[in-house]
């Protein structure tokens, strides 16, 4: 249960040791780098963004040879713990079987995501990418100090020493010593300023398949998730929220709820009425017994269908340019052949398998939080604000998250703030309270992937060359109004247009316009963010253009990617492995291809589908090629592609959150349908060998599957799907 080892949140060294001692029973002596620790921290405090931090923040070695690697990134399924440990253990030449991983406390001064600047958090498939230099350096420095400790003890030159699996050898004198035996001495040494990193050809773990550090505990039920946290005197709370976004409590009657055996208190909080009870079941019965009158005056009352109609109109109105190259309008105007299409994408819920939950222990001076926390720094700020404390008084224990797909990384920290506000309303008396969401709370809880309308137009010249491309995107902004709004340039939210504005195809005239809408429905990034819809539209439409040009969709794309070696590389690899050129498929079956760049990785997928005469789609096989730079752990990359494909496929086939008069029409897996075992295709993943810096793998696999299937459906039926999910379109051939 490595994850249950919870570190305290305050950076002070003594605390850190105590925490470590308390946490890792096998650890007798904490091992830190005294020389560097304080200066490094002071320095960090002054300019926290400038890396690297003191290595002590990332590794502890015990005299028992245990190696504890501290992960600043949450493990929510993507394999971050294992990847991070692999990178550090590689440079340390650690014995993998001795490696355990512990989650870092919330402390941006030491654990900021270098891709986010001052913020500690996980997202944007950046865990490995931003940790890569930092952890290699930390591991190498630890190794260097252990070596000098050995050379000091044996009075032999460091150059004569070798390290293998946590054991240092001196061949000439046949001496050897374990890391653990050198801990005391090494702890007295200064941290070297610079160290030599390994040559990739000497990697022993990276590129191999070290077992995931979290898997064993996830196969016997012992892995600790937030829902499993039990503290003395802990109570469980369920919150009744307004059925309409923006509605507030007008009045409520909690008498019946209070009478339910086990219910301790009914309290009002900004987001609704909470029932605090001795057990989930009591809280649930209590919440069912609540009667609440809501004030809907400021609530969003529109239906999603009506909103989509408005989006459709907006697509013909002037919008903000997200990319302007040449004169697309003119090119299309003069084109010999014109192609146009529009696409509708629904709101989507993340629906992580573990419904959102958080445990909060609040008193007058401190707020302690246990959660599958993905945005520590922001959650710390929001929790502090809600509790009326300073961020430093808020500590966070990051536990395993039962999935997230972006949901837990939200700038309003909705579920954390709810839990804190309930603890506050309860009396802030130090009683631990676990806020548990139900699936219905999750599906109806907002922060969805926004709904979008896309309109595309393209022009081909006499030689059937693509000369003009005009793409209009209409939808809500994820960043506007959040702390990330600062990142918006000239009113353009990059997450609305990524994957479209940076389209890689060689087209002389390109215009991409964005029309940002407003709605009472809160929105958020959803696995692969912008590319979840832009790649869908671009890759389906380019297929339609290829068809209009009478060209093969694969060769048409390849021609336009001549100058994009990595993009072209994955496209060719996927097509080749899928047997793209092996001729047409039997009746009722079809093959489709799509390619994208997301989070600096390149992914291409070929989907093979069958469509029966009732128009139901079965995806039989998916061939996926990815180039994500150095493959730190190929098996985890493979798993992320498999998972991304299944996640994206479920959404493409069935996923839709719809509103009727402001009410969410879905509530659970009966009406928010997701992919099941008997709908999962065979998946083959091929990784492009590379020595480039590692790039994202958690999200990119999600983007191409939708369009690949859409294009395959066209090949099978001759029908183009423009309204998603597929289940909303009739594709009987």
């Amino acid at each position, binding site marked *: 249960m490595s994850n249950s080892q919870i570190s305290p949140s305050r950076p002070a060294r003594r605390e850190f040791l105590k925490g470590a001692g308390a946490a890792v029973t096998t650890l007798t002596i904490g091992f830190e780098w005294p020389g560097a620790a304080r200066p490094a921290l002071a320095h960090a405090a002054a300019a926290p963004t400038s890396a690297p931090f003191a290595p002590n923040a990332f590794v502890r070695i015990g005299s028992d040879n245990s190696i504890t690697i501290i992960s600043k990134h949450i493990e*929510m*399924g993507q394999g971050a713990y294992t990847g991070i440990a692999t990178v550090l253990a590689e440079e340390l030449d650690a014995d993998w079987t001795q490696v355990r991983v512990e989650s870092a406390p919330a402390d941006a001064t030491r654990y900021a995501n270098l891709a986010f600047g001052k913020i500690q958090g996980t997202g944007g498939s950046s865990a490995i990418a931003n940790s890569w230099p930092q952890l290699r350096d930390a591991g190498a420095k630890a190794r260097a100090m252990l070596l000098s400790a050995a050379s000091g003890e044996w009075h032999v030159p460091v150059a004569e020493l070798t390290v293998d699996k946590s054991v240092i050898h001196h061949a000439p004198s046949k001496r050897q010593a374990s890391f653990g035996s050198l801990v005391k001495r090494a702890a007295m040494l200064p941290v070297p300023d610079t160290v030599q990193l390994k040559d990739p050809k000497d990697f022993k773990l990276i590129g191999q398949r070290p*077992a995931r550090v*979290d*898997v*064993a*505990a*996830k*196969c*016997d*039920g*012992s*892995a600790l*998730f937030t*829902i*499993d946290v*039990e503290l003395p005197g802990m109570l*469980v709370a369920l919150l009744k929220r307004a059925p309409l976004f923006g509605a507030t409590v007008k009045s409520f009657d909690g008498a019946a709820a209070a009478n339910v*055996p*086990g219910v301790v208190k009914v309290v009002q909080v900004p987001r609704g009425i909470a029932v605090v009870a001795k*057990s*989930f*079941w*009591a809280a649930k*019965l209590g919440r069912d017994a609540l009667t609440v009158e809501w004030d809907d005056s400021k609530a969003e009352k529109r239906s999603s269908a009506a909103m989509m109609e408005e989006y459709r109109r907006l697509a013909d109105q002037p919008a903000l340019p997200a990319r302007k190259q040449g004169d697309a309008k003119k090119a299309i105007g003069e084109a010999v052949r014109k192609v146009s299409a529009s696409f509708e994408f629904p709101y989507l819920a993340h*629906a*992580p*398998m*573990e*419904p959102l939950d958080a445990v909060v222990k609040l008193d007058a001076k401190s707020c302690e939080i246990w959660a599958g926390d993905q945005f520590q720094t922001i959650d710390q700020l929001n929790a502090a604000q809600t509790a009326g404390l300073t961020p430093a008084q808020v500590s966070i224990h990051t536990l*395993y*998250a*039962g*999935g*997230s*797909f972006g949901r837990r990384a939200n700038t309003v920290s909705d579920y954390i703030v709810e839990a804190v506000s309930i603890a506050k309303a309860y009396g802030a008396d130090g009683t631990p309270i676990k806020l*548990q969401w*139900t*699936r219905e709370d999750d599906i109806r809880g907002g922060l969805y992937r926004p709904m979008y309308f896309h309109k595309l137009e393209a022009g081909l010249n006499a030689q059937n060359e693509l000369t003009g491309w005009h793409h209009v995107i209409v939808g809500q902004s994820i960043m506007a109004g959040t702390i990330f709004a600062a990142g918006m340039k000239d009113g353009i939210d990059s997450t609305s247009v990524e994957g479209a504005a940076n389209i890689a195809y060689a087209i002389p005239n390109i215009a991409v316009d964005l029309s940002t809408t407003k709605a009472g429905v809160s929105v958020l990034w959803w696995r692969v963010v912008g590319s979840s819809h832009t790649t869908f539209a671009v890759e389906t439409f380019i297929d339609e253009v290829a068809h209009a040009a009478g060209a093969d969709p694969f060769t048409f794309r390849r021609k336009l990617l001549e100058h994009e070696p990595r993009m072209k590389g994955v496209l060719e690899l996927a097509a080749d492995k899928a047997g793209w050129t092996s001729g047409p498929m039997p009746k009722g079956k079809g093959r489709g291809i799509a390619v994208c760049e997301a989070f600096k990785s390149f992914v291409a997928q070929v989907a093979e589908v069958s469509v029966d005469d009732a128009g139901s789609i079965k995806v039989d096989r998916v061939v996926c090629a990815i180039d994500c730079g150095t493959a730190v752990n190929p*098996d*985890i990359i493979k*798993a992320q592609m*498999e*998972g*991304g*494909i*299944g*996640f994206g*496929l479920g959404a493409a086939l069935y996923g839709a959150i719809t509103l009727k008069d402001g009410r969410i029409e879905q509530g*659970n*897996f*009966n009406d928010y349908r*997701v*992919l*099941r*075992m*008997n*709908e*999962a295709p*065979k998946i083959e993943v091929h990784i492009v060998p590379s020595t480039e810096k590692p790039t994202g793998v958690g999200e990119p696999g999600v983007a191409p599957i939708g369009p690949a299937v859409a294009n395959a459906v066209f090949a099978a039926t001759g029908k183009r799907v423009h309204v998603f999910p597929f289940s909303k379109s009739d594709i009987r051939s």
Partner: protein
Amino acid sequence: MASQTGVLMATTFLLNGQSTTLDVDPNMPLLWAIREVARLHGTKFGCGMAMCGACTVHVDGQAVRSCVLSLSSVANRQVTTIEGLKSKQAKAVQAAWIDLQVPQCGYCQSGQIMSATALLEKNGAPTDADIDSAMSGNICRCATYPRIRAAIHAAASSAKA
């Protein structure tokens, strides 16, 4: 919900081989009795309406959804949770799960393993179709499906060996 009196009543059953008596609302779903009263946390909550399989346990050897099964209905029956798995098939499943590195977030996996074990205990050599039937009620949002399928086939052969 007339029947939800919340009145306490003792229910006795075999939990992982131990005779267990829980003195709670007999209408409480077995899931919550197991998690919050018997304090075994391996069995998870995902939907509360038998749609996801995260709460799968064995009752008299059959894989059932504990979120909709009331505590009273397991009186004097044998309930096995992930913590109580012992059979040769169960061990083979867990070993295959680790060997093929099936779990991602891991939250659904207790339920997946319970369903897979129940399948293998009844059917030593399941076909892909058998696996679909036994496992399609277990949702995995991380979509570890291809590995689950492969791991079940692997476990089947190792359990036979």
